[in-house]
């Protein structure tokens, strides 16, 4: 593509900078509140930058013995990584079948897959809890990781199926002529072509697992097994005078790793694509 005209570039830059500011506001406000002392927080506007910035709140959150940050960080890292691996592989397999193969009741079965998204989780929560209890999975990481390997959820299957349907069949047909079976086509041809979509699914899964609250809340009892999002909610006690300086510091600390991951991961939306050569 030839470079767009100067005016277009200027407009794009303006929108990018302006938009970034708008979307940064919530985070900046959290950060600013996290950097204030309780006294200053109580007496200044949230939009005002800290007058005497302090890292005390971060230190408190990081070193609180009752709520061990490091333990919770390790737990959620393990859960989120396992889920991501599981979802990326299993949902892409299922999506491949729906996008590329012909089989009995394919479209109806796809509707069935989608329908699992349509029933509110509130009413399946208790039966699911009882099920996991009978499996002796309560108070382990299994309820939070095993389902990822078993299909990876309708949302991800649907997303990957859509993406795969958008990829021309030229390459897989060429591979088939060379004698490749479905597994080879899936593993060698389609997966590499799905880079951006796989990155999206992986990213969503990781963020979702990292930020999941109800899952860990229900299934993890031991404080030593808690995840960050759950454990740091401890600061948000029922009292009307919640320690917002700590809640904000905790929330910034939970978000930071995700920011880094997204910042690095967004490259894959570009790099993963190798389609220029297809004709």
């Amino acid at each position, binding site marked *: *593509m*030839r470079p*767009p005209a100067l005016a277009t570039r200027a407009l*794009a830059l303006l929108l990018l900078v302006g*938009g970034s500011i708008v*979307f940064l*506001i*919530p985070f900046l406000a*959290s950060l600013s509140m996290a950097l204030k002392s309780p006294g200053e927080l*109580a007496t200044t506007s949230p939009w005002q930058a800290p007058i005497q910035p302090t890292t005390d709140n971060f230190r408190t959150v990081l070193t609180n013995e009752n709520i061990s940050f490091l333990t919770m960080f390790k737990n959620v890292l393990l859960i989120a990584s396992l889920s991501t691996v599981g979802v990326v592989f299993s949902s892409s*397999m*299922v999506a491949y*079948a729906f996008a590329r193969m*012909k*089989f*009995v*009741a394919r479209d*109806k*079965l796809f509707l069935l897959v*989608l329908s699992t998204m*349509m*029933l*509110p989780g*509130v*009413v399946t929560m*208790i*039966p699911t809890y009882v*099920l996991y*209890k009978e499996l002796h999975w309560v108070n382990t990481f299994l309820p939070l990781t095993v389902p990822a390997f*078993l*299909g990876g959820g309708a949302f991800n299957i*649907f*997303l990957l199926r*859509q*993406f795969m349907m*958008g*990829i021309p069949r030229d390459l897989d047909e060429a591979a088939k002529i060379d004698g490749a079976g479905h597994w080879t086509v899936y593993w060698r041809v389609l997966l590499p072509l799905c880079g951006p979509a796989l*990155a*999206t699914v992986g*990213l969503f899964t990781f963020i979702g697992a990292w*930020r999941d609250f109800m899952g860990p*809340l*229900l299934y993890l*009892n031991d*404080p030593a097994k808690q995840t960050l999002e*759950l454990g740091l909610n*401890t600061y*948000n*006690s*029922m009292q*009307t*005078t919640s320690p917002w300086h700590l809640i904000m510091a905790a*929330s*910034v600390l939970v978000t930071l790793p995700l920011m880094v991951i*997204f910042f690095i991961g967004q490259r894959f939306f*570009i790099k*993963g*694509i190798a*389609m220029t050569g*297809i004709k």
Partner: protein
Amino acid sequence: MRPSVRFACCLASVVALCSVATADVTLRLVVWDGDDGLGVVRQAAKEFEAAHPGIHVRLENVPYGQYATKLLAQVAAGASPDVAMMEPKMYQGFARRGACVSLDGFFGQTPDFRIDDYYKPIVDVHRFEGKLYVLPRDIAPIGLIYYNKRLFKEAGLAYPDGTWTWDWKPRPELKEKDFTWVIQQLSKRDAKGKPVQWGFVPAWTRAFADTVVYSQGLRYVDDPVHPTRWNWTDPGIVKAYQWIADLGMKEQWIPSSTEISNVLMSSSDKLFLEQKAAMFQCGIWAVPAFRKALKPGSKEWFDWDITLAPGHIDPRTGKAVRAAPTGGSGYAMMSSCRHQKEAWLLTTWMAGPPAMRLMAKAGLAQPAIKRLALEEPWVPGPSTPEDQRYPPSRKFTDEAVASVVFDPTADYYLELNTYYESKVDSVMAGTLTAERAFSLADNDAKIRLRQILNQQSLPPFNWPFAAIGGTAVVAGVLLWLYGPRQRKLSLAERKENRAAYGFLLPWIIGALALTLGPMILSLFMSLADWDIMTPAHWRGVGNYTEAFSQDPRFWGSLRVTALYTVFAVPLGLVVSLAMALLLNTKVKGIALYRTCFYLPALASTVATSLVFKKLFQAEGGLINSVIYGGDGHGDLFGIGWLLEKIAGAPGPANWLGNERLALPALVLMSLWGAGSGMVILLAGLQGIPQFYYEAATLDGAGPWQKFKAVTFPLLTPSLFFTLVTGVIASFQIFTQAFVMTSGGPNDSTRFFILHLYNQAFEALRMGYSSALAWILFAVILVFTALQWRLNRYVHYEAEAK
């Protein structure tokens, strides 16, 4: 339990009293304390273990908001903890269904235990049908007024001694003995008539309203344990709420609801700390936070103390009646506990002198044992460290207990009360008069109340019928999937078929083992009356007919949800598409821009909800600052004028407090999360092969033609996905309303799932909730099927020939 084990347990508990144990027992203790409180509980548990060798305590904590939900799941699965924290409004649901045991039989096991040591009201409120189910650990009268001594001195007023009374009008002749006059004296306005200081602010409106209602001798229901009548339309109650609304909006002696939402961090305590309100009504639990914020010597510091909330002169007797709302909590022993004697030891420890002294020392909770509430460390004394002396008049906390009134404990009280409670915001915002609001609420609540009171006993759940029905459903689905086929499959087709099911295997295993079972069970339960804790009863299609014809909230919540979907989904789609196109450009630092745009979708819910509450503030909120300018008199593109027309109320837009603006506010808020859609579309854009653009350029196409001929068609699969999943998610919107508005004001954000969730976990009607869920399922299915027709406009490269 085998007899020998039981004997060992008995022995253990007896011996444990002498701090020698024989058998090791592990007890699970669950609390909702967070932060400071959790540290104290943990220390108390450690000291218990040290004093009782052989008994181990596994402390679990669950945030208050989800505490009951998790405990219910655990009770349903037979996995509940041994000792659980409880409070008056929570325990009856468990006690009534036998999920926790009555404690009376254990009293004799502890030699020096006397239930009379405890404050009587907090013990009585935990009795259900004559039996005690919760051993109280603290009592928290909300009839306390924090006051700013500096502002009192400045106004030339004597410090309150707690003997004052309130009346509907200031009584100058009574001077400082009249609360309303004091409020008036302590409020100030600037030259333009804008309030700059308020006399008084309650921690939340109900705290003050309840005080005004109770001290008139009125109650919200006729019987706190088995209520059959709700009194919200009583003239005294109506007058109380109208009076408070007028104090805020007309007299401006207390902050109006708009102003409270303006200043509060999470509550109005900030006004008191900022010295903008001279008095603050709250329970004693604000003290630790106040001590931290008002360190002696810091520039925020001012001299403060507490006193009692005012009483009200009974016109008949001429005597002052004092009454105020109350909180409190304690510990219950769950029925599934297998080591009841040890659990009792733990209960009396955690709700007894050892733990109470620790809580008192931290200033967190007033001991439920009267004796401990009169001595150090609760009441400051000679050995109290300097930083723990505030507030000096802590003795008032004991006097406050004499006038406590608890919320009714009936397990259906909370559900019915939401009908009235959800109208309070509208009264305070002035969009409805108290009389009109509560009579509207009364109409709806009466329908529900009649159902509750006339509940007939139902037959046990018809499992054989359900099993047959369930089999029929499964058979029906299988028949629909694999019904009579048109033709026989060829060999190649059969091979492909087998291979395909191999690829599907992970999903099939997951569905059969984990997903479909609970779904089918919830379908069964939609035909049942099921309270989660006891076996279900058969209700047939009763839940469905109730939903369509008797539920006062069914159609309203469906309408609100549909309205949200109609606006949020298309707007979200357009915004994320625009963002994706913008972020697909090649400029320096694009990674950084992408991260910025996506950031709101990453942030944690609790923190974000607070920030958004502040964004949407009527005054000082960023959004209104943009619309009305820094001085508050501007009007950007006439948006302010438009908002005023929509809101039907003058002044700056009170986004979350006005019932016509709350839903638009949530739609607007959802746009900040458009980053997720952006990422999907960005991935879709990146998936478009470059050579199409190259070909288009060769053909001499401009940017718009390229978008029309290449970008848009090839993006349709991703757009279609975003639309379909967007609609599905939007119909199930919950969290935003749960944390931001709790369904208010006046039900304007009571989404379908919020209603369904409250029915399931607040009203304990999982059966009815399941029916609602399956109705929503059907609605979403229909909309998805309708959207599926758009598929023909979706360009699938793989199908293109």
